[in-house]
């Protein structure tokens, strides 16, 4: 069949050119564990925030005073801590 001049000439279609970055993934490999991970020991907190003076409720409204006290502690042989002065006292024993 002859193509007449009245028929529109069929146009070409553009190829799709994609921008890619597969190269980057060649540098992304998982890290294999060499063994069980050692836990990082976090030191027990040694500071305590305690009120020095417990003022009457009415006074607290206008003159509340707080102070940070760092008790001096001594490590005993069994790994526990006792105040530097006074009777040795385990924290778990309360008051």
């Amino acid at each position: 069949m002859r193509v007449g001049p009245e028929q529109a000439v069929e146009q070409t279609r553009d190829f799709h050119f994609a921008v890619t970055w597969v190269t980057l993934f060649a540098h992304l490999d998982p890290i294999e564990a060499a063994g069980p991970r050692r836990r990082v020991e976090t030191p027990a907190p040694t500071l305590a925030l305690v009120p020095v003076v417990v003022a009457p409720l009415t006074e607290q409204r206008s003159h509340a005073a707080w102070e940070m006290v760092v008790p001096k502690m001594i490590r005993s042989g069994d790994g526990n801590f006792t105040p530097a002065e006074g009777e040795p006292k385990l924290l778990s024993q309360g008051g």
Partner: protein
Amino acid sequence: MQPSNIIEISVQPGVQPQIDTALGLRASGRLDEALRALANPNEYNPYLYTIRGEIEFALGYFHDAALSYFAVVQSEPDNADAHYNLALCLQRSDRWDASCQAFERALLLDPSRDAARLGLGASLLYLNRLDEALATFQQCSEAAQAPAAFGKAVALQLLHRFGEAESAYEALLASDPDSTEALSNLIALNVETNDLDRVRDYSQRLLKISPQSPVGLQGLATVALEREDHPAAARYCDRIVELMPDCLEGWHNLRVSLERILTAFSAPKPVAVGAELASEVK
């Protein structure tokens, strides 16, 4: 023979026997069996889940691997490796946004980790967060210079900063002339800027390295079609559809090129061309 009503009970505590079995199987390449050995642990152990994640990743079960690493980072939030591996799993599961967060956590814990920065940049490119991607690649150290430069070039190209992108690709090609992806992207760049000479040059370079490259052939076909070199266009399109039978543009352009060649043959020829033809033949 052992009576059937006797149940064997392991005397070894915890999940260590499971881990040892899995590691042995993995070392001998039996990954499926290694993974089965780690199923149903009787207690939570981050190392078991780490090994499980590694095996699942190697088997291509990226979603499962992500779940394993997710368990690890829950119990070990300071484990930069686990965050990084989780990010890779998420990336390969097409969870680009979540992978960015995991890469960022890995970088917070270990700012010197270039691989995490490259991974973050790659995910940001997928998310079309191009300025952030560019900044991320720029933060890479000298040790990751080549891949970071490639990432920068891609980000610049997608930002339509074509001149800078082309310079960046050329710098890469100076050190790695066989980078087929850099050449493919340069072809795409010059098609976009309609620089046909460069499309032709980069396509020829690419085909020299990789003679079956569809992008190289499409580049040359594009040039031939634009310049109305129908025989060349038909030749390139023929090779394209041979290599990529699903390329609809290739089939369409092959047909159009062949029709134009036939039309040229069947068109009435001018009579007084004898002198010109004679001079060409000479």
